[in-house]
């Protein structure tokens, strides 16, 4: 069953414009959020579901303004809590396509617990995590994904803690679908969103997003044509994991100790290359890929790490309701009366 099963099909063809609300977009010039917004607006029509059955729920942060700009139903809720609201909505409304928009602070700092529980619970929602590695809206404090040692308003002597790797965290939290993509690569972003939307269950899409004001250039190495080729791995299900420029291809192999590492393609046996399988039941494979280069973006693994189906929380919850209704009619008078009564 796909992620959108149960959502009514559109009876018209939408364009990006149909998903554009009348609200003026208020991000800073050059903010990566614009690119994601454009990609989402452009991609939603292809899902072929009714616009009115689409809902965006966000927390608080720059990225959390997202729902205002979408001509769908939406809620700009409170900091960190969007997954909880989406859970209640998705559980009671199988006919909706429910999206959560969150940031690295919103989703991983204050909202970390809701995120990991939503993933483990496997509610049919798609979470877009805009990771700019900084608190944008509150003007530049470090976030749980900021580089260690980063000097920010709240860490003038440098931050101290090890950042989360959102993909690893999600996998450790039993997520069924985890992917990573980039604000600046519209095609890859769209492709990744497509896969996420098709997945039934909780899906996490980490989007590296540039904040030109408070953390400019955090992902510049992935935008520079040369560097990008040297660093960017795009996972493809069923294919060996290779990357790099034409003249110097790399591949991912497993070393003697069982760890993944990057090697020059020329120097390894093709048969030793790790073949990506997003559907493996054992999360270890996806996890190992998530550890290949991390905070330093060298390399940067993108694409769908894991896409494994299992029954969703909301489908099962509704099924329990249906079964109960079949077994016992909803006779309120009988319920209230119960069995031990007396009459005066």
């Amino acid at each position, binding site marked *: 069953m796909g992620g959108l099963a149960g959502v009514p099909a559109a009876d018209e063809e939408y364009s990006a414009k149909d998903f554009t609300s009348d609200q003026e977009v208020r991000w800073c010039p050059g903010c990566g959020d614009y690119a994601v917004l454009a990609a989402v607006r452009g991609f939603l029509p292809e899902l072929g579901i009714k616009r009115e059955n689409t809902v965006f729920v966000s927390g608080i942060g720059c990225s959390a303004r997202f729902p205002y700009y979408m001509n769908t139903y939406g809620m700009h809720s*409170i900091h960190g809590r969007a997954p909880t609201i989406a859970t209640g909505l998705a559980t009671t409304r199988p006919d909706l396509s429910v999206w959560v928009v969150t940031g690295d602070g919103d989703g991983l700092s204050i909202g970390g617990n809701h995120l990991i529980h939503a993933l483990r619970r496997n509610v049919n929602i798609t979470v877009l995590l805009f990771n700019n590695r900084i608190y944008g809206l509150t003007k530049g404090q470090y976030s749980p994904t900021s580089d260690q040692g980063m000097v920010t308003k709240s860490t003038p002597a440098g931050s101290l803690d090890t950042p989360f790797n959102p993909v690893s965290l999600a996998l450790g939290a039993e997520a069924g679908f985890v992917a990573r993509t980039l604000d600046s690569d519209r095609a890859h972003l769209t492709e990744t969103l497509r896969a996420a939307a098709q997945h039934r269950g909780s899906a996490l899409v980490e989007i590296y997003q540039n904040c030109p004001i408070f953390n400019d250039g955090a992902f510049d190495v992935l935008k520079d044509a040369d560097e990008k080729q040297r660093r960017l791995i795009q996972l493809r299900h069923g294919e060996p994991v290779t990357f790099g420029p034409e003249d110097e291809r790399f591949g991912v192999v497993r070393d003697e100790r069982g760890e993944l590492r990057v090697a020059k393609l020329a120097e390894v046996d093709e048969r030793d290359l790790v073949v990506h399988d997003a559907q493996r039941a054992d999360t270890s494979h996806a996890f190992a890929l998530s550890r290949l280069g991390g905070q330093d973006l060298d390399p940067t693994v993108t694409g769908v790490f894991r896409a494994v189906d299992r029954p969703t929380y909301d489908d099962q919850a509704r099924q329990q309701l249906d079964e109960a209704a079949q077994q016992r009619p909803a006779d309120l008078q009988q319920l209230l009366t119960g069995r031990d009564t007396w009459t005066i």
Partner: protein
Amino acid sequence: MVATNGQRTESDPEGQQPDTLRKVNRVVIRFAGDSGDGMQLTGDRFTSEAAAFGNDLATLPNYPAEIRAPAGTLPGVSSFQLHFADYDILTPGDRPDVLVAMNPAALKANLGDLPAGATVVVNTDEFTKRNLKKVGYEQSPLETDELERFTVHRVAMSELTKGAVAETGLTRKEAERCKNMFALGLLSWMYHRPTDNTERFLREKFSGKPQVAEANLLAFRAGWNYGETTESFAVAYEVEPASLPEGTYRQVTGNLALAYGLVAAGQRSELPVFLGSYPITPASDVLHEMAKHKNFGVTTFQAEDEIAGVGAALGASFGGSLGVTTTSGPGLALKSETIGLAVALELPMLICDIQRGGPSTGLPTKTEQADLLQALYGRNGESPVPVLAPRSPADCFDIAMDAARIALTYRTPVLLLSDGATANGSEPWLIPDVSELPDLRVSFADSPNAPDGSEEFWPYQRDPRTLAREWAVPGTPGLEHRVGGLEKLDGKGSISYDPDNHDAMVRLRQRRIDGIEVPDVPVEDPDGDARVLVLGWGSSYGPIGAACRRLRARGMPVAQTHLRHLNPMPGNLGEVLRRYDRVVVPEMNMGQLAMLLRSRYLVDAQSYTKVAGLPFQAEELENVLSDVVQGVEL
């Protein structure tokens, strides 16, 4: 029986005649034992028997915060008090006429509450040296004169039980665990209770373990027979059915009635009910109960924490369900930010707080009324919400329905304040006729509503009478809109930082809540000559009412009124308050309602407060009030 508390037996006004079956009007029994002794179940069964017999009744369970404190210790004592009568009573009783003490700890912990002349039934088998020492008895109180003011029945319950169930082949330990049913059997005999229900109950409860069922039945009957045959129990008592209003009754606890009220609200509004909750004493049972009623379209969601519970409920409300969340004080604190969001979103939602002893973790299994101000003000900014409180276990049903009415009509989160005593206490409930329950149906918005003819949908466009905004649920074509916690332009609902709009919206939200229709408060002043008014809210209704009855019986006029709506307050309240020379407000907190009344009506309302984790006793309120009444009469 030496009747207590001013109640006299009918057939034996002086309490002398040594009869075999004697009529009494009311009895208070307390079963007390170790946490592992099954006292709650025993009390519950006896309650069912009394209910089935047609008595009026009220109960008060009391158990430790530990799951099972060390056996035989004072902190491990669990008790269940039950008051049943042949007339309508109001409280679980101040002081037990009968104490069943299953071990020395239970005796010691409860002795202080007994009036002189009370009956004490003890399980002598547990009065071992070791057990006595655990609670600091040097010598067994059964052997000293410590109990001389009481009628004491010494029964070797453990051994008798073991003997009675020997034939089932249970181990000695398992066999002994049936001793609570022995006690129940004995008390059932003493009070002439019908036993069929209990026998049926035991068979069903242990239907998977026939051996255990059999053993419990044998123990129960052995207890009954023990009363019937031994010399020591010369007298049995009878409490006739009460003459309550006509109709069919059942027994309910507050939490059960609350759950039923929520289910009924869903049925009568024709909305799915979504309960998002996180377990916490004493609210968890509402979640447990609701989870059983999936066939009524009730979804229950045990969230990762309280914030997620209320968040999910709000999400469900956004989607067109009746979102509900249940919790106790510490959980309400955690939910406060999200309730503020619900205020800004103007969506219906019910938040049920079953209050317990605070501050902080406090006394989790005890009762208190100290969350009133938290309910009213525990959020950032001006965020008014309606607040309601049931006055008794059965009232929880009506309050839940009324809370749903307000939430749905006015599109607002509503706070319902129950408490531990109401939640776990029980009383007979006149089962309502479902077809006569209020109609709570709502209509969702289905078309554009912009007053400027623009064919837009304006989510904050309001009903001029209720000031409620339209509820347009996702999936409705053409009404796509966004809501959020930032201030919004009235009508249109877009984000607005305009100062005048903000001021207007703050006042509008306040006006919407202030304008909620709530019934006038009735005053009970039978002779119309009272100069003192007693006003309470929540679970103090019973003891206040009982105290007033006692005063009136003593010829002292006193008026009583009770608030079920704390916000907004009934329209006639100011006038009522000003009618009396003195207003006394008993509360199980430091005077929270009194503060509100004083501020709003500038009436010199006097607090009487007790914050001891236990309900008021009728007797203590009688004393307090009689002083006040005598004071004004001077």
